[in-house]
């Protein structure tokens, strides 16, 4: 007889953890905990085969791959990659508020609930790949739900659960009178288990849908042959008999094979000009397999404290819905969810219906790995576990009230227990994980110079602040685009640029040549902390703005104005066709940051971004003209402390600039010869000496004549600041709208003052072009 070595948590869960008399929803005490399925977040299940490991790696690449319009991204999208929404704390996880999305619907007087037109099956996208105004729901839309992404950890194990493992906890009519009902949702006739409303049964379906709704990628269903090869049995044929696989407990896996095969039926198509399917069957297979192979979060060893917390968790009624385990073919899974729908009351209801789930019904969220996947609840309104508990309503109200009645020490024990369910070791306030190495001084991502003592502490605080995810409880909003600085600036690292899916939409009204900004400003925010997404109100011009890198901005901040003004030639007195307008702001200061050079300093950049992009108010004593000191959300002002603001500013000023990968002196001569260097000035003289940012920080007309746009101060609709080119290889997409995916595309998008240089590039011989692009790529 084979001896099986079981890990400590298996013994603990099978024995002690389930032996508590206080548990009102006892599990099967005889069910052994599944083996070979627990691992750190984002890891593959330890019991995976060599072939599965290879598939997992390929699937992980697909999950983190960024798609471009030419590859099928769009025509409408929220994201450019799967990992955009599933990144926290690692690929496969959840995400902060900046990856939230809206569901929009029309609820009619006769009770009809209809996904709003203008959405993708109800999902409201933020971008059109071709630019222009963003998608918006039909005017009749009257039901909106905000959704925060959910983690995928262990979903393959949940997919294997037989329906009876879930249905055994259903009590739709509350027959036992405990105030907890719980009913299943259904998908294609099978008990649903995935999604905030348990609206989906198959992982293939749970992936194909969002690929289409959020990325605009079309797919064909997996073939039966592919489904048969998936890590979770997913074969329709002979489903009644089930399919046994190596490593699974003996006995038929009733209905598993078939319900996993019940994925969306039809091939998906769109009209973006890219042949369908836009994601190959092989890539889809790898992606689905990757998700299925993600390990269950490995719990921490139990301690007396967590054991007491676990007991209290059961005693106060949490375990009535967050049942400690569900039993699948591999054994018991400590998922702490019944995967059923519960009425969570009016305070959490948002009216969104899915399957049989009504507007106030939500799936019990699995709690494994919960330590690292804040924010919590369907819309992420809770930033902490304690807050999440206290926001429970409806069927959760009784447990919430019991929680509120606990002594502080008991609450701490419950929280310690919850945090022991996996992920605590990688929890952070943002995406920087505890212990992550900081690049050395002078290296990109590190400080500009060696820091020590108080400066080092301030830089570290500023970096943490830059990375920190904010929630509504922290003052995020009332409207916002991101919930942290890092939310937009993360390419290739914290402080860097941002991909297409964090573009900011500017808008306004253009009448003939006159631009009028909306009263609330030109930013059309993506999110509202409360209520529907802000929408345009009759404006007729929309302009996406790509996120530029902030690396090295402190050097630009320190440039004396005269070094910038020296290149200005607003009247083109030298007759070279290049003007260069210094953006002098109303207070006389010189603008140097932002696509319109509308911001004069790093401090004001911090004030502007925290205010305009995050909705955070700043202390008055900072003296930032671009920030606000008060807003109308529920959080007391200011929402950032003086120390945080100053640290953030210090961090940004002390970021090392990108360093060139290689020098190409011959190509640089070409660069100057064809006129690129007239605007992308290679050298500016700052306090520390020469700065090779390849910018003059001046405004130039580079937009094509007749193109509508946004005006800002002295910057007309066709004026844009010359963007620095250092680190160009890390900052795609290019141009102000991010519509150029390559450097060459960006060159060809130059008009106006850049037209001559564009032609100069076109006139280069092929080898010269290659050298030229190599030079730019290595800046």
């Amino acid at each position: 007889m084979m001896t099986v070595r079981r890990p400590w948590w298996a013994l603990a869960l099978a024995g002690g953890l389930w032996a508590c008399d206080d548990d009102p929803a006892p599990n099967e005490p005889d069910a052994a905990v599944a083996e070979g399925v627990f691992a750190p977040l984002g890891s593959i299940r330890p019991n995976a085969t060599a072939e599965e490991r290879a598939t997992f790696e390929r699937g992980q690449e697909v999950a983190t791959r960024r798609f471009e319009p030419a590859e099928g991204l769009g025509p409408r999208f929220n994201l450019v990659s799967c990992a955009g929404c599933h990144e926290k704390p690692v690929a496969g996880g959840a995400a902060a508020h900046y990856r939230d999305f809206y569901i929009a619907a029309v609820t009619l007087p006769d009770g009809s609930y209809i996904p709003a037109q203008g959405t993708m099956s109800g999902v409201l996208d933020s971008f059109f790949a071709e630019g222009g105004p963003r998608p918006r729901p039909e005017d009749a839309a009257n039901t909106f739900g905000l959704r925060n992404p959910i983690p995928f950890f262990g979903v393959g194990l949940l997919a294997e659960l037989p329906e009876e493992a879930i249905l055994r906890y259903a009590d739709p009519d509350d027959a036992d009178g405990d105030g907890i009902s719980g009913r299943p949702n259904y998908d294609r006739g099978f008990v649903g288990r995935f999604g905030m409303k348990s609206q989906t049964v198959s992982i293939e379906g749970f992936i194909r849908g969002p690929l289409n709704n959020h990325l605009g990628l079309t797919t064909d269903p997996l073939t039966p042959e592919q489904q048969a090869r998936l890590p979770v049995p997913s074969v329709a044929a002979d489903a009644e008999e089930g399919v046994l696989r190596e490593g699974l407990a003996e006995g038929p896996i009733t209905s598993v094979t078939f319900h996993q095969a019940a994925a969306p039926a039809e091939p998906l198509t769109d009209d973006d000009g890219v042949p369908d399917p836009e994601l190959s069957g092989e890539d889809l297979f790898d992606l689905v397999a990757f998700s299925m192979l993600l390990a269950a979060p490995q719990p921490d060893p139990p301690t007396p404290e967590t054991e007491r917390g676990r007991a209290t968790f059961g005693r106060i009624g949490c375990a009535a819905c967050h049942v400690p385990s569900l039993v699948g073919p591999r054994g018991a899974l400590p998922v702490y969810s019944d995967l059923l729908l519960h009425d969570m009351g009016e305070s959490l209801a948002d009216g969104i219906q899915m399957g049989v789930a009504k507007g106030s019904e939500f799936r019990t969220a699995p709690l494994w790995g919960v330590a690292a996947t804040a924010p919590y609840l369907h819309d992420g309104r809770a930033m902490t576990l304690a807050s999440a508990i206290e926001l429970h309503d409806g069927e959760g109200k009784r447990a919430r009230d019991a929680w509120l009645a606990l002594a502080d020490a008991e609450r701490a024990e419950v929280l310690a227990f919850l945090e022991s369910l996996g992920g605590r070791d990688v929890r952070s306030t943002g995406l920087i994980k505890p212990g992550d190495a900081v690049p050395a001084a002078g290296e990109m991502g590190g400080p500009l110079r060696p820091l020590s003592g108080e400066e080092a502490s301030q830089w570290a605080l500023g970096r943490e602040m830059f990375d920190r995810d904010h929630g509504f409880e922290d003052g995020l909003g009332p409207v916002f685009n991101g919930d942290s600085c890092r939310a937009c600036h993360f390419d290739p690292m914290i402080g860097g640029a941002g991909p297409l899916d964090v573009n900011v939409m500017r808008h306004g009204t253009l009448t003939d040549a006159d631009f009028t900004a909306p009263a609330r400003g030109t930013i059309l925010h993506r999110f509202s902390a409360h209520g529907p997404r802000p929408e345009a109100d009759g404006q007729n011009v929309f302009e996406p703005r790509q996120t530029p890198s902030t690396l090295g901005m402190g050097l630009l901040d320190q440039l004396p104005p005269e070094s910038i003004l020296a290149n200005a030639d607003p009247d083109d007195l030298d007759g070279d066709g290049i003007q260069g307008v210094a953006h002098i702001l109303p207070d006389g200061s010189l603008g140097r940051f932002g696509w319109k050079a509308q911001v004069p300093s790093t401090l004001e950049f911090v004030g502007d971004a925290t205010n305009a992009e995050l909705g955070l108010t700043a202390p008055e004593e900072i003296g930032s003209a671009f920030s606000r000191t008060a807003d109308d959300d529920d959080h007391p002002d200011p929402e950032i402390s003086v120390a945080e603001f100053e640290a953030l500013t210090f961090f940004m000023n002390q970021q090392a600039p990108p360093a060139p990968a290689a020098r190409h002196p011959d190509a640089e001569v070409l660069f100057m010869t064809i006129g690129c260097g007239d605007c992308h000035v290679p050298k500016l003289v700052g306090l520390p000496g020469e700065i090779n940012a390849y910018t003059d920080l001046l405004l130039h007309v580079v937009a094509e004549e007749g193109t509508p746009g946004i005006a800002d101060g002295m910057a007309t609709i066709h004026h844009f600041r010359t963007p620095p080119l250092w680190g160009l290889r890390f900052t795609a997409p290019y141009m102000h709208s991010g519509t150029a995916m390559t450097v060459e595309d960006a060159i060809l998008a130059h008009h106006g003052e850049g037209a001559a240089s564009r032609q100069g590039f076109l006139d280069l011989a092929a080898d010269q072009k290659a050298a030229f692009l190599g030079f730019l790529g290595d800046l």
Partner: protein
Amino acid sequence: MVGSRVDVKTPGGVLRLVLCLLAALAFGACDDDDDDPVDPVPDAAVPETWGPAFDPADQGALLSVFGEAPDDIWTVGGQPEAGVAWHFDGQAWAQATLPDGPLLNWVHGAGGVLWMVGNEGRALRRVGDGAIEAVPTPVTAPLWGVWAASADEAWAVGGEARDDGTEADPVILHFTGGAWERVAIPDVDRGFRALFKVFGLGPGQVYAVGARGVALRYDGAGWAQIPTGTGEDLISLWGNSEADLAVVGGRSNGVFGRLADGGFQTQVAVGQPGFNGVFVQADGVAWVAANRGVLLQVPAGALDGTRVATGTREVLHGIWGTATGHRVAVGGSLDSSPPWVGVALEVGR
């Protein structure tokens, strides 16, 4: 046991023979007498042993079945680029010769005139025993449903089925003996892109159902919306009278409804996959063809039904039956990318 016929000259006949042999082993009886008269049986006594009617093989999926008589039953479908039709003459199924054209989605007839409609605004007509001819329509959108009120009058509906978030106009066409003419869509309380089926209880009482729970009623003078209480797609409808008119739909979870209070009273069929087709017997019992090979029998007046074993996992899309108890259900691998494989089941022949 219901009298049945097995024609071993056709693929379907062979399959039926095999099934009969298997059934004989199990139950000790298999009636293989071609000369036996078909005994009319009460609807309630229809046995629930479904078997292959014929083998459409790679000719494509079958989406609709209808007959004007027990020996004149048609089923249509095909592949996206090529529609097909099969005919049952009371003895055997045989593939019909059609003009070239794309997939056919629905079939219905009255007064000896049979209509078939399909993708790209395609409409075919067969008069009596004549050849099947193409009849122009003023649209290029898919036509999903057709209902003939008489030899001289028919309605067809259609539109873009896939909801990609953009607007597209649903289609209602009316044929009154001359040519198909497009009829204006009445004001409705929601945006929608397609009507999927049309069915009438008479020339002055016609219903159409479609995307996002839309249902329309024609009263002889004009179309108007009627309530349904659902935003789910309504796919098909059938009935003999106002008392038993049934509507089905739902893409993920089935939706079943009946005419009530001037609209359709609908409910989600918990635990059932999406419903595609419905046929209502004279006694009010409804048969529902659904995804995953599910076939449901819904008692008269009820909204809930029970599953009937079909032996297939393919999508069942259309169902129809004779007063004599012959039931035919058709479908195919519509939940996979084309090329589709069809399935045709029957019972009670």
